C-alpha cells in the first residue's frame, strides 16, 4: 500500500487530485481511499489531503503520519517542515514548480519529480489549477498507474470541453514531468 500526502492551498484542487487518483486506482481493479485533513477549507488557506492506494482493500481510516509519497501542489510550501514530516525512507516527492533546479536535503527522499503544472494548466484550461496535470505526473512518477485509467477517472469530475482539456493536462503531466533520483 502506498500512503500519499498532498499539500496545497485552497482553490488548487488538492482534495480532488487525491480523489481522482483513488478513482483511477479503482478503475484498474485496485483500491483507493482519499480524504481531506479535517478542518476548515477555504480559498488560499493551506490544504492537506491524504490518499491510500493498494491492490488490497484499504481498511485504515486514520490520517497519514508516515507517507511514502508527498505531493506538493503549492510551490511556496516546498520548504515547509510540514511537507517532509514523517516521510518514510525511500520516499518520493512530486512538486509543482516552474523551477526544475530546486534541490532538497532530506535523507529519506530518494526520488523527486518536478513539473510546471500551473503553466500547463494555464495553456490548456486557462486557469492556474494544477490538479489534473499532477494526476498524470503522479502516475508517471509512482509507476503505480498507467495514464489511461487516470484519463477515464476524469470523466467523473468533468464533462464536455473541460473534460477534453483536462485529459490533455493529465497526459502532458504524464509526458512532461521530470524525474530525478537522489
Amino acid at each position, binding site marked *: 500500500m502506498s500512503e500519499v500526502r498532498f499539500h496545497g492551498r485552497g482553490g488548487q484542487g488538492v482534495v480532488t487530485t*487525491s*480523489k481522482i487518483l*483513488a*478513482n483511477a486506482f*479503482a*478503475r484498474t481493479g485496485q*483500491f*483507493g*481511499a*482519499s*480524504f*481531506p485533513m*479535517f*478542518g*476548515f477549507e477555504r480559498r488560499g488557506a493551506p490544504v492537506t489531503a491524504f490518499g491510500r492506494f493498494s491492490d488490497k482493500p*484499504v*481498511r*485504515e*481510516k*486514520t*490520517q497519514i*503520519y508516515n507517507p511514502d509519497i508527498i505531493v506538493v501542489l503549492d510551490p511556496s510550501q516546498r520548504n515547509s517542515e510540514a511537507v517532509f514530516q514523517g516521510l518514510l525512507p525511500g520516499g518520493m516527492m512530486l512538486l509543482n514548480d516552474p523551477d526544475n533546479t530546486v534541490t532538497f536535503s532530506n535523507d529519506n527522499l530518494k526520488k523527486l519529480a518536478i513539473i510546471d503544472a500551473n503553466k500547463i494548466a494555464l495553456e490548456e484550461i486557462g486557469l492556474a489549477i494544477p490538479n489534473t496535470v499532477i494526476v498524470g505526473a503522479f502516475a508517471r512518477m509512482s509507476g503505480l498507474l498507467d495514464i489511461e485509467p487516470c484519463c477515464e*477517472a476524469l470523466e*467523473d469530475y468533468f464533462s464536455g470541453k473541460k473534460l477534453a482539456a483536462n485529459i490533455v493536462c493529465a497526459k502532458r503531466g504524464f509526458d512532461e514531468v521530470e524525474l530525478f533520483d537522489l
Partner: protein
Amino acid sequence: MEKSQIKVITGNAAAAIAAKLARPDVVAAYPITPQTEIIEQISKFHANEEMDCELITVEGENSAMNAVMAASLAGGRVFTATSSWGLAFMYDAVLATAGARAPVVMVNVNRETPGIIAVSSGQQDMISTRDCGWIFLIAEDCQEVLDMVLQAYRLAEDYDIQVPVMVHYDGFYLSYLSEGVDVPFQEDVDKFLAVLKDQPERTKLTPGEKLGCGSHGILGGYLELRHKHVSAMERSKEKFKQIDKEFEDIFGRSYGGLIEEYRMDDADVVLVGSGSMCGTIKTVIDTKRDAGVKVGLLKMRMYRPFPSEAMVKALKGKKAIGVVDRSLCFGFKGGPIYTELKAFETKLNGSKMISFIDGIANTDITTANVGQMIDTTCDLAAGKDVREVTWVSYPEAQEDGGL
C-alpha cells in the same frame, strides 16, 4: 460486474445515492457540517429529475424531522439526514417520531456536540439521543453506509417493527472519505425493498378516514404503547439478521447482522468497537496476529436495541475485553458501550473488561493507539493491574487518581 458498478464516492454521496435508490416520497433536510453534501447531492438528483420525491428544503432541523414524521404517518417513505447540533435541534421531534412509531429513516453523520465548539468527529451526538426509542445502526465504511441505509428501510418499514431507524457513521472520517463503492442497480434495490409492499398496510393518516395520530395515552394506554414499542425493538434484532441475509442473497455482501466478528474464533482478547475505527482495528489485529497475539474484534453494527445476546455469545469466556468508545457517558467513568456491556458481565464467564476512550473530537484512533489498546487488554488478560478507564489520546487523564 453485472449487478452493480464501482464508483469512487464519499460516505455522504453513498448515503445520498442510497436514499435515491430507496425511492422516498418525501425528503426534508437542513444542511450541517459534515452532513451537508448529502442534501446537496439529493438536491441535485431532484433538480435533474433523477429523484422523484417531494424535496422540502426546510428552515431548520426541527422542521425536517417534523415534516418527515408527518409524511411517514401519512403513508410515505421518507428520508432525512443531520448531525450533531442538528440532531439536538430536532430532539423533541425525534422523540415524537419514535412515540408515533413513524418508520422514518435518518442518517446521522456523527459529530461532537455543542458547548465546546468542535467541528469534528465523535459519537457524542448519537449517545445523547440513544434512549429516544429509535433503532441505531452504525456503519464502518462508505460501502456499508450505502448498504445500511437500504437495510434500514427494510427494518423501519417492516410491519412487525415500525420503529424509526437512524444510520450513524463517523463524520469527517467517512463523510469526506472517497473510496470505491459498489453501487447497486435500481432494479436490485427495488427487488430488495419489494417485500415491504407485500406486507399488510400500516395505519395511515388519510383525509376522511376518521383516524387520528397523536392520541393521549391514559390509564394503562401509555404503558401499553411503550411496551409494544420495546417489544418491537426486541423483535428488530432477529429481523435485522434476516434482512442482512436477504441482502446478501441479492447483493452478495453481508455483514454478520447485529455484530461483525473479526478473527474472534480463537481469540483470547477482544476489542469491542463501532464505526470507522473498526477498519483500523482490523489492520492492527492482522499485524498482532502475525506476531502471535490472539486478538479479535467485535464490531457493533446495531447499537439500539443493544445486541446483548449476540455480544454475550461472541464474548463469553474470552480472557479480556477492551471496549473502545468514541464518546463519553457523563456520570460514569467508562464509555457508554462499556458501561452497558458491564451489565452482562456475569454472563461472560469471567471475562475481564476495561474501557478505552478515544477518537473524541477528531483525536485520531491511530494504528499506534489501537496497538496500545490491544497491549493493555493483553496485560489485563495476563492478570496485570491495569486501569479500568484509559483516555488513550489524553495521557494527562492518568494524573487524575479518580479515573
